[in-house]
């Protein structure tokens, strides 16, 4: 059954722990982990242990804080997550096992998210309300009001969180999300996120977006909105904390844009080469060292620990079987009695 940590705070108006040194170290640790996994997967693709890579290196300062703030569990009492393919940091910070990402990267039959069917970073984790990541851009923005509608009726503090890229906001589905979240008297607790990295594959944002502030589109629907530096995990954490408290207790939508980096380009199709963009993990680590929250040696140890962990996981994954003929027709239709 589902792990569940129903830790609704006593004071109903705030959400999440305040920023402390301990939290900063947790953020750092999770950011390092996420970065290393993505870099491992890029290497897997290069060395023939996967066909295709797409993921979120550069978005750790956006994803990790969210992962730590999710009210995770199963069913409408908890948050639902409608994510996209750059959301690994969120899912890892929630506690996903690195080996499972590597399994999906290698398309093994043991891949718990899709049994080797979908691209890497296409999660589906029912016990944490992470609904299947859709390869179609922006469709997650039309399913989010549905889970939020059930949550609204259910009561409690569960919200629906939807995350996606900047270019994707051009799809009408982004507007549908704004609209369905704001029916008068039926407002929905949806946290509408935009990861603004200024690119859609090869198309620069300034060619196709009237303004880099996409969150303001929510203003036309009366939704409070804000842009935050998504490369700064503390800023992001604070902004998400506030936004989540709003959604949870007002039971209304909020739109938050994080300006992030696309550190390895779009995907392996474009080579997955390291780009000249802000590196939020390095910057944050340097800051923690400067602030003496972390020493260089402890920092190094964090990297080493995850490196070792991931290396072992990769070796394990390489031994695992691939899907065969008998797996093709599994799950075409759900058997009677299936439930979410």
């Amino acid at each position, binding site marked *: 059954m589902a792990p569940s940590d129903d830790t609704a705070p006593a004071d109903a108006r705030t959400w999440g722990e305040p920023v402390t040194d301990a939290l900063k170290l947790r953020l750092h640790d999770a950011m390092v982990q996420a970065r290393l996994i993505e870099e491992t997967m890029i290497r897997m693709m290069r060395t023939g242990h996967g066909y295709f890579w797409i993921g979120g290196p550069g978005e750790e300062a956006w994803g990790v804080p969210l992962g730590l703030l999710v009210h995770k569990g199963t069913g409408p009492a908890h948050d639902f997550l409608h994510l996209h393919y750059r959301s690994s940091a969120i899912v890892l910070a929630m506690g996903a096992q690195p080996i499972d990402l590597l399994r999906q990267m290698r398309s093994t039959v043991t891949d718990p998210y899709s049994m080797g069917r979908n691209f890497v970073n296409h999660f589906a984790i029912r016990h944490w309300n992470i609904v*299947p990541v859709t390869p179609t851009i922006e469709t997650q923005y*039309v399913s989010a009001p549905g889970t939020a509608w059930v949550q609204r009726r259910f009561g409690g503090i569960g919200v629906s969180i939807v995350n996606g890229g900047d270019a994707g906001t051009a799809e009408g589905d982004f507007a549908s999300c704004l609209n369905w979240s704001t029916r008068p008297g039926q407002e929905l607790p949806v946290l509408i996120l935009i990861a603004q990295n200024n690119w859609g594959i090869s198309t620069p944002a300034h060619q196709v977006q009237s303004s880099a502030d996409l969150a303001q589109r929510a203003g036309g629907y009366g939704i409070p909105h804000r842009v935050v530096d998504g490369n700064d995990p503390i800023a992001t954490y604070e902004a998400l904390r506030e936004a989540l408290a709003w959604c949870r207790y007002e039971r209304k939508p909020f739109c938050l844009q994080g300006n992030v980096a696309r550190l390895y380009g779009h995907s392996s199709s474009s080579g997955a080469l390291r780009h000249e963009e802000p590196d939020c993990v390095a910057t944050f680590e340097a800051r923690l060292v400067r602030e003496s929250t972390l020493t260089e040696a402890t920092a190094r140890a964090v990297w080493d620990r995850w490196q070792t962990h991931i290396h072992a996981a990769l070796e394990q994954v390489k031994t695992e079987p691939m899907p065969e003929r008998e797996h093709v027709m599994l799950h075409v239709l759900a058997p009677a009695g299936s439930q*979410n």
Partner: protein
Amino acid sequence: MATQAQAVRMALHYGEENLGVTDIFGEDVGAPLGGVFTCTQGLKTAWNAPLDERGIIGTALGIAYAGGRAVAEIQFCDYIFNCIDLLKLCGNVHWSSAGAYCVPLTVMTPVGAGIHGSMYHSHSFESMMTHVQGWKVVMPSNPLDTYGMLIAAMKEPNPVMVLLPKALMRTKGEEPIPGEPDDEKELNARINAPVGVDRTNWRPRWPDGLTDYTVPFGVARVRREGRNATVVSYGRHLNLCVQAADELSAEGLTFDVIDLRTLYPFDLPTVKASVEKTGRLLVVNEDTEVTNFGEHVLRRAIDEAFYSLEVPPRLLAGLDVPGVGLAWGYEQYSVPQAADVKAAMRAMATATT
């Protein structure tokens, strides 16, 4: 006898009370209208959606994810074509998530011509929809099956597309729905919203004895038995086939008339057995004829029973035109009419080998 629209209403009421239906929604589905065909009048969980089909299907999917059970309506299937990607998503969630999620969801939408609906209230949808995986697809031809298949749909863990022949909405059945009042007037008085007056305080008085009557998916019904040919159809045109079979018996021609009812998965064994008996096969529907679901039925029948076929199996379907035009002549000459069905059946039964 209940009409098709009343059958829908009663089934959905049963679903709200007994099958965990949480939301019945779509454009104009809630009060005061209760649907452009009155199918959702008086239902306690019915509500009006924004005018956004993508939002409707997306929200329905989200409701399913969160453990709710929605019956979503697309006002006319003519307006579903901007959602095919979302229908595909609903149909691949279970497979792509390796079984983690399922999508218990019913979508219902009126289909077909026959009400002078012009280009955008006359579309058929079965050909495109049966090409989308992960769904069950049904199309009833009478109120009793409508009731029973909706009950089945609301029990399904998979998405089900219920195609409702719009020309049959006000048509009564020949067999009562278990639990409906014997007296039609009483039924109307109980569950039809009053016309021409304020409905704000109107509440239906649902019949007490409605049951779990279920028509299982994938099971056809042989509506007429005969020797000279097999006719496979569904929905509105099934009734034209039955009528033609009855008329042609005067000419000494008899037919197996098979009501598929479920289009995906369809009842191949019943079709096969009949073709093996009659040696002749005609499939009838009103969708346009290129890449038509009836061609799939023909292909599967040929796969299974080619050597039983005495004459070429045929499809009678709509002309390949961009729409059904409004003027009488357009519908008359582009969508198979009773006379066309009868002629095609006679031709099939009498073709020389």
